[in-house]
């Protein structure tokens, strides 16, 4: 196994392009190292992107923030601007693993690992985040929900990587929230995850909403019916009930070691409702 730690994006792409064998990109490494150890992957080349300056930074851009692929959770959580703009996304990232894992794990890594249970992804999807995908042919921006195509599978081409994620600006009476269900308080993979972002008008009516669910299907899903249940309402009890119903109906989970089908379907609705309540409260504070 060859290890390279390029200092520029171009050099990284070149390495990817010239390697015929199995390649793994090393950002925080909290998934890759576990896979290496278990023998799940045996890469020929590991490309560590943490020495690429641009990938280590968070930059303000058009009222939103661009977050480099190598920015770890602890750093994101310490960034006042992002915390204020997208508190739900930050809390989702901070739910990934322990304090120790936060010192390494990255949002982009979480995205590209393509687990349906990834905590940060439903929050990013709800926030309308885009991923900047860069490869030999240049860069393109795509919605984050287009990255994962199935468990462990991505739409990234050969020699492509996600350089950064962009969290857009948002309106005044708006906010977001993410909740996940785990049997313990920490150190678990989401059994169900729900990310919600909402925008209210001056009269307290929801004008825009995005609802995303994790761990209830082969990939994180954007649930339009759930958003529809909120839009045009004051997010009252009836709307919350409709939201919960829509979230539960959209869930197509499996039985596994982490939860049952019935449990996940029910809890998808419970969490969507609870996350919506938090998002509404946050939108009022602003």
């Amino acid at each position, binding site marked *: *196994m*060859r*290890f390279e*730690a390029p200092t520029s994006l171009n050099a990284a792409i070149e390495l990817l392009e010239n390697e015929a064998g199995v390649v793994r990109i*090393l950002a*925080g*490494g*909290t998934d890759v*190292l*576990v896979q*290496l*150890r*278990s023998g799940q992957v045996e890469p020929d080349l*590991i490309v*560590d992107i*943490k020495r690429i300056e641009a990938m280590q930074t968070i930059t303000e851009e058009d009222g939103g923030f661009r977050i480099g692929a190598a920015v*770890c959770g*602890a750093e994101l959580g310490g960034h006042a601007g992002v915390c204020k703009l997208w508190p739900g996304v930050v809390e989702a990232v901070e739910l990934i*693993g*322990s*304090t*120790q*894992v936060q*010192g*390494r794990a990255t949002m982009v890594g979480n995205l590209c690992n393509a687990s349906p249970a990834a905590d940060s992804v439903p929050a990013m999807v709800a926030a309308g985040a885009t991923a900047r995908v860069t490869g030999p042919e240049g860069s393109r921006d795509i919605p984050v929900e287009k990255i994962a195509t199935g468990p462990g599978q991505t739409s990234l081409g050969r020699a492509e990587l996600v350089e950064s994620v962009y969290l857009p600006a948002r309106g005044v009476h708006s906010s977001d929230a993410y909740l996940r269900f785990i049997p313990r*308080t*920490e*150190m678990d993979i989401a059994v169900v995850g729900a990310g919600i972002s909402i925008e209210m008008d001056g009269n307290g009516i929801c004008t825009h909403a995005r609802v995303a669910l994790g761990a209830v299907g082969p990939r994180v899903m954007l649930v339009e019916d759930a958003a529809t249940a909120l839009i045009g309402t004051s997010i009252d009890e009836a709307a919350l009930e409709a939201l919960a119903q829509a979230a539960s109906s959209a869930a197509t989970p499996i039985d596994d070691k982490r939860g049952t089908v019935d449990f996940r379907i029910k809890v998808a609705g419970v969490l969507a409702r609870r996350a919506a309540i938090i998002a509404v409260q946050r939108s009022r504070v602003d």
Partner: protein
Amino acid sequence: MTQTHVSTTINGDKVEYLCETDETLLDVLRDTLSLTGSKEGCGSGDCGACSVMLDGRLVCACLVLGVEAQDRKIETIEGMASGDELHPLQQKFLEHAALQCGICTPGFLVAAKALLDENPDPTETEVRYWLAGNLCRCTGYDKIIRAVMDAATEMRGQA
């Protein structure tokens, strides 16, 4: 397998070593450098027994490759006491009987020090959540939490 040469700083000392690319920092610390204070309980970042500081951030050494340490600064349990004086956390762990078997203790101490460096006055809940990545099977955590809170109080008094 050809080995890679790495220069790094561990507990303030310049260190050089050779390692295979798939070796973890924990393997290097324990097997190559004989710094066996960091323990391997899981090898997958789930127990925290290998907690070390990497460029000022708390990480699991089992989730870092040895080759990544080039030009970094690493602090381990071996660097926690200064000379013949224990760190207040180490002393409080002893006084509160916060260890039974002691295998998780180095990881807890490194993690707790990282907490108190960042937040000198944590609540019990903050201590519990910060240390959620450190498993202890003997104590039920009670005495560990008390030791950390007590050390925080003492360190604030000294500061």
